[in-house]
């Protein structure tokens, strides 16, 4: 146990340093302020909706709007923050040459990378919790009930971020500038959401007689199985359709732990790639 603690001391220091450095980034703060403004603004949508709520019909349209806008805002800005921070922590250190000072200390590359990755996750989590906290408050004020289901939704959102973060981090370890990994991160996010197409390709190729088309279908199936599919995390949106204090239905109780394991498996795979490329990097 003490060996593990000893081993983690270095990464923890690096993580804390990364966190301190990360929260000072102006772009990050900008994203965060923007997202908080949108979430805060979403709670004023009800005033706008007073004109649109028809007749005496009692609806939860305003509440739904707040929920959907907030979840989307958290997804978009949270993802941008995740990509931006995951893409920049290592290349910035290479650019500033700080990395040489750190690696010249008795710190293994694995520990350095682990520290950086932990630092990134701390920043991502802090941002996510801040946004979710405001969202939580907005719903609580509107609904006058503790929206406990939101916590499940936030948890799944984090694991979605974790997957994108790990692969973006892996790309960033190959680069000396943050631009390429940022673009790659966006690409990873888009691809992750479009993995479903591969299943579609495979289904359509089943009826084909042409060898090439069937081969493409087979390849698509393999890729579908291997690549992470971020659409699976869209379960977070359906959780919010339930009543705020409802217990999770049995089907979701089944799906959530499996989704967490799914996210963790790909996050570790991403981290392994990051270490693989980083250990051979000439520094």
């Amino acid at each position: 146990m003490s060996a593990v603690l000893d081993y983690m001391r270095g990464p923890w220091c690096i993580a804390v340093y990364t966190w301190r450095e990360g929260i000072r980034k102006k772009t990050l703060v900008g994203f965060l302020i923007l997202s908080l403004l949108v979430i805060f603004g979403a709670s004023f949508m009800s005033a706008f909706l007073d004109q649109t709520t028809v007749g005496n019909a009692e609806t939860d349209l305003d509440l739904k709007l707040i929920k959907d806008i907030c979840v989307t805002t958290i997804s978009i800005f949270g993802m941008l923050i995740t990509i931006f921070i995951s893409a920049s922590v290592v290349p910035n250190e290479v650019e500033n040459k700080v990395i040489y000072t750190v690696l010249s200390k008795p710190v293994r590359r694995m520990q350095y990378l682990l520290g950086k990755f932990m630092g990134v996750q701390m920043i991502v989590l802090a941002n996510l919790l801040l946004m979710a906290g405001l969202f939580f408050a907005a719903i609580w004020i509107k609904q006058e009930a503790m929206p406990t289901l939101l916590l499940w939704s936030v948890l799944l959102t984090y694991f979605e971020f974790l997957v994108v973060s790990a692969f973006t981090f892996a790309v960033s370890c190959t680069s000396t500038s943050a631009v390429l990994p940022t673009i790659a991160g966006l690409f990873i996010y888009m691809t992750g959401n479009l993995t479903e197409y591969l299943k579609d390709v495979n289904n359509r190729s089943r009826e084909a007689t042409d060898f090439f088309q069937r081969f493409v279908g087979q390849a698509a199936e393999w890729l579908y199985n291997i690549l992470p599919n971020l659409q699976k995390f869209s379960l977070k949106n359906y959780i919010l359709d339930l009543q705020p204090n409802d217990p999770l239905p049995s089907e979701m109780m089944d799906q959530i732990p499996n989704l967490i394991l799914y996210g963790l498996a790909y996050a570790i795979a991403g981290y392994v790639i990051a270490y693989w490329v980083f250990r051979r990097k000439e520094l």
Partner: protein
Amino acid sequence: MMNKHPNITLGLLLALFVALGAIQGQRLDRLFEADAFYKWIIAAATDERYGWAEALEHADPALYKEVVAVADPLLQDAKMPEGEQDAISRLSKSLQERENDKLVYELAKGNDLAPFRAQFLEKLRGGDLYYTKDLSYSAVMSGMEGEGSVSIFNLFFGFRKVAANFMWLQVDRYWHMGHLYKMVPLMKTCVLLDPNFIDAYLLGAWHLGYNATAAMEYTPIPLRVWSDKYQDCLGEQEKYYYLAIDFLKDGIRNNPRNYKLFFDLGFGMYREKLNDIDNAVLYLSEAVRLPHERWVPRMLYKCLEEQGEYEKALDGWKENQKRFPENDVNDRSMERLAGLIAERRAAQALEKAKVTQDEAERARLIAESEAAEKEAYDIWVKMDEPYALARKLRIDAINRAEEGLYLEAVSYLDKARFEVGSLFDELSDLIIKYKQAGGLPLSVSEKKALVRDEESVACIGMPEAEKQKRVEALKKRRS
């Protein structure tokens, strides 16, 4: 190993975690598929309970029948709702109780129904199923032909719900502009993008059933056209009512655990628009089984009263009294129902007395009738409100008519029907009956009412059997 062959070790580690991810991914796909199958079972069971016939041309009923054959014996431990009809399957009945949801989900996920789950997925991807037409799980949607294919669902990276919201704002804009014709397709797109958009169903049905029909002319029944699909005579307004009903039913298929859809279908459409009290009671009974607002049961009791189920309505109000003792409506409703029950008891005893040959029995029945009538009368006197006054006058009128004093009876009824609007039709029918019995001249409006009644039994294209049924119902009302 790591120090000697780092690349091999890292390669193996990477392969291990990607394989773990892939296995988890497949496991999740199976779970999403089981979930989709479970939701289809719920939708099909709802259809079975209410006798909806929209899916007859699709593969759903046959597949559901096969599922029921296997599932019913496995549901011996399920809690069953009381007093339900035996014609429907155990699976459908068990899904009326929310606590059975887990049991049914385990069935849908397990090995017993695995062959049907596979069939379901195959049919779903072939676009052969009806109940799942708006199913939103993209993992299941993959490869599905026709509407709702993967391209639409993945286009927004999971932000479809926001797209649906903004589209709804456009629907609302059209509403304020008066462009009603543009709203319907957009509303349908909204619920295609977000099948859980409950308010879109509710407001969409409200627009269709209430606003779109507000400026339409009433179509007299003889000018309406018979619809085999809806088993009703349709004019312009009725077409929109049924469009609204279909929209709400779609909403129920996608969200069978939301009371609002059942409530709006039962009360908003069947009771308020079509005056179909039986269907209103049917859907309101489902609404109260689900988590609901406190006013929902009250509407059910109101409809039960209109249906003539006074005892059930009284039991309901008593239950409501226990839960919300501070509500004055409970006491008034219970008093009113006690009065109505006593009135009915009096009428039934009198009817029996008229047909019995036994003098002693007749005397007993008449005494029973008088006692019940007095009980009702006392209740109406005690209540001292317009409705009670009208009921009191009705009793007086019936007594005068029994004595052959038809003119007096008519004058009592004439006063009573203007006391309470809800009794107007019932009392007007009674006035016509007594005028005819007493040989009194009918007014022009009463003659017209009779003509309307005669004409109301048939519309264009109505099958003969239906016409006969309506003739019988009219005769029964007049007697």
